[in-house]
């Protein structure tokens, strides 16, 4: 069997089996609902507006289309330059582990393997082009089909160029040039060429500078500068496929298609004629991807390969006697301190800094910084539990180990929720203390320091309770719909995954606000009753009542989730 037939078998069988599996999954209501929700969203947002047939739709004005072309040319040039200067020194071509296991030792030529890889890459770029067309094809040129062909030609040519650059770089390295010298050489040549061309364009061709700068006059100047040789020759292969994508009518499309196909063919010839050994680097790259995938499955770092953990700090000394769930809290705090907290602190500092900068023009620095700290507290209620995933979301792949521990489900659930809640609560309390401290010396008429302290105290009571609710919902999602949260090979993709995310978001918001309803009613009632007598001092009492209601709700939910954990069966379909 030729490799071409084998490849078509792999791809066709793969697509067929994926569709078959998707249909099988849809026999279960949870997958069916997710798929339907995803499909509905896809249709409402994109599909309804998209037609391949029919006349021209909306078009960008000519000047904007020219600006877009310029932006795309610049983007392509940057991609090409960075690939040559900063790209990997190894001729890594992307093959899956299975392809390496079955195709590399197979009796096929190196050229056939390269063709297999290139065809796969061209098919992928077609999918990317299709997605681009769905999102923007109709409003850019009004000719989605022409845009599809053109954007595919752009992406395919760029992809071939990057592959060619990788192979050529590797070839230079094989011929004895060190990586540093090669980079330096490439950079020097690139700078010399760009400098020379720019000098030629500005000094020799001398396009007339506009008297008044406007979009039209700037475009006219750029048009004049880039249309004269030799800059026009250099830009020609970059512009050729872009012109196809941005063709506004059939005649423009027909005239720009042959040069673009020619550029693609030249790139193909360049890559296929390369005789650099790519096998070893490709095997290494596949192994790296496999390790990263394994790290994802073991719950590490939410889909990325695990970062280097240098810190060995522990939150407290764990004794061997006492409540066993404290051990799980301790474990999760360690995980948080080693990875999540540093990231979150960076995020908070960046946000605080950004908001302070934007406000310091009008107000003094200290109260502004205090206000920024106070604003971050509600941000943490919503974003903290999403960032701190050191609970069932991280431990789902370790559920076998958790299930074998001599602990009740309730103990495990309580411990899993408590770890991230503690971290977020400490951050919130620190921010509130900072908010009060930083604004203490700044007079705010009508909002004096005692009132600020009362509000901060109420927030200190309420915010951690809200975080706990959010965390309980996120963890309930994992226990009730583990297949939506896991990193199984058979996990949802495409429309189903989109539907799952939408439903999860909608469900989380609904449950969150539903859970807060009784607490809001009780808290508001207490605040209303005491306001006349205590004014701002009523707020901490009302918050304490609301927090107590939330805690009661949480204790019921955790008891229920504990029973879910006790019955939990990850192997269930």
């Amino acid at each position, binding site marked *: 069997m030729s490799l071409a037939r084998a490849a078509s078998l792999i791809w066709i069988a793969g697509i067929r089996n994926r569709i078959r599996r998707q249909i099988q999954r849809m026999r279960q209501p949870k997958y069916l609902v997710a798929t339907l929700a995803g499909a509905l969203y896809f249709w409402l947002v994109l599909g309804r507006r998209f037609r391949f047939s029919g006349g021209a739709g909306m078009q960008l004005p000519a000047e904007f289309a020219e600006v877009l072309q310029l932006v795309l040319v610049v983007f392509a040039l940057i991609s090409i330059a960075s690939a040559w200067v900063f790209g990997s020194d190894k001729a890594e071509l992307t093959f899956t582990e299975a392809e390496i296991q079955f195709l590399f030792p197979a009796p096929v030529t190196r050229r056939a393997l390269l063709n297999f890889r290139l065809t796969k890459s061209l098919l992928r770029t077609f999918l990317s082009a299709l997605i681009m067309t769905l999102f923007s094809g109709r409003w850019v040129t009004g000719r989605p089909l022409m845009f599809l062909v053109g954007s595919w030609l752009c992406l395919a040519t760029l992809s071939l160029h990057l592959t060619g650059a990788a192979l050529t770089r590797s070839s230079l390295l094989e011929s004895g040039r060190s990586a540093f010298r090669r980079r330096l050489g490439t950079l020097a040549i690139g700078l010399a060429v760009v400098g020379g061309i720019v000098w030629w364009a500005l000094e020799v061709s001398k396009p007339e500078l506009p008297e008044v700068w406007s979009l039209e006059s700037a475009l006219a100047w750029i048009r004049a500068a880039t249309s004269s040789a030799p800059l026009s020759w250099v830009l020609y292969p970059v512009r050729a496929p872009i012109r196809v994508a941005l063709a506004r009518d059939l005649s423009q499309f027909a005239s720009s298609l042959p040069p673009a196909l020619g550029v693609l063919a030249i790139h193909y010839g360049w890559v296929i004629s390369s005789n650099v050994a790519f096998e070893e680097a490709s095997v290494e790259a596949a192994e790296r991807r496999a390790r990263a995938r394994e*790290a994802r499955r*073991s*719950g*590490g*770092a939410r889909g990325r390969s*695990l970062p280097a*953990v240098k810190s*060995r700090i*522990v939150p407290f000394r*764990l*004794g*061997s*006697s*006492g409540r*066993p769930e*404290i*051990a*799980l809290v*301790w*474990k999760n705090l*360690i*995980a948080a301190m*080693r*990875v999540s907290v540093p990231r979150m602190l960076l995020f908070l500092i960046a946000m605080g800094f950004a908001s302070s900068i934007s406000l310091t023009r009008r107000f003094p620095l200290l109260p502004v910084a205090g206000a920024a700290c106070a604003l971050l507290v509600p941000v943490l209620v919503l974003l903290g539990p999403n960032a701190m995933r050191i609970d069932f979301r991280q431990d789902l*792949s*370790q*559920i*076998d*180990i958790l*299930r*074998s*521990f*001599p*602990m*009740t*489900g309730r*103990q495990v659930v309580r411990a899993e929720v408590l770890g991230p809640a503690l971290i977020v609560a400490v951050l919130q309390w620190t921010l509130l203390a900072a908010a009060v401290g930083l604004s203490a010396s700044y007079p705010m008429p009508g909002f004096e320091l005692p009132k600020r302290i009362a509000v901060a105290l109420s927030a200190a009571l309420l915010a951690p309770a809200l975080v706990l609710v959010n965390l309980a919902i996120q963890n309930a999602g994992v226990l009730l719909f583990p297949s939506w949260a896991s990193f199984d090979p058979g996990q949802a993709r495409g429309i189903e995954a989109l539907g799952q995310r939408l439903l999860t978001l909608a469900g989380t918001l609904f449950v969150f606000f539903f859970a807060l309803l009784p607490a809001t009613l009780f808290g508001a009632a207490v605040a209303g009753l005491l306001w006349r007598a205590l004014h701002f001092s009523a707020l901490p009492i009302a918050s304490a009542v609301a927090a107590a209601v939330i805690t009661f709700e949480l204790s019921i939910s955790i008891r229920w989730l504990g029973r879910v954990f*006790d*019955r939990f*069966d*990850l*192997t*269930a*379909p």
Partner: protein
Amino acid sequence: MPQRRSCGKNERVTLNGGPLLQVEGLGKIYGELRAVSDLTFEVNLGEVVGLVGPNGAGKTTTLRCLAGIIPPTQGRIRIAAHDLQQDPVRAKGELAFLPDEPRLFDYLTVREHLNLIARIYGVADWERKADVLLEELELKGKENALPLELSRGMKQKLSIASGFLHEPRLILLDEPLTGLDPLGIRRMKQSLRQRAEGGAAVVLSSHLLPLVEELCHRILVIAGGRNVAFGSLDEIRGRLSGTAQVLPGRESLEDLFIRITSQSAAPEEKV
């Protein structure tokens, strides 16, 4: 109702010579597939029982049910007289489960893993016991390493150390030698023998039939999720020869396994 407290050693139940593990009519169904069906056997203190069977026979499912990781669809499991469904905390406090693929927490160091286990199982004097295990399993000097910094074999050894730290009376092992080097394999075998001699009951699942033959007092052969033979090697030989006698002989477990499983080969049973 599940109990809250972890089960310390001082709370252990005296079995008065009864079996440590009792399995009655265990069954597990996944969707439409019956993975394990009506499995009944017992394991006594000091006994090593081998669980063998072809791929997909239900060995791992059985072990995961015994460890309380997945709930059985039917049947009853008692560990040290505690019903695993009714009193899971006390039952689980008596056992250790070592999966074929070590499942470790990415962000905990070697020693922190042992500290975690010590707290969960309430292990007194855990640091001394941990040092002994680390020495025994050649993990000395790696105490502060994260799983990411360990080789596959080292991870397996850490998983073993975590399993042995609380001195379980029932040890459940799924392919225990995977990833270990020859010296590690020898030490693991010695360790299992010593623990059995010290009174622990061991159930190990493996495709390495010479290992099972060497270590196990009794062997449970399962195929298609069913018990197709259970007893000592000689007893199984006797049963296969058509007599009820114990027949010592030269036929190895491998020969017997192939005979038994080819006789009982049946397509996966659907519910």
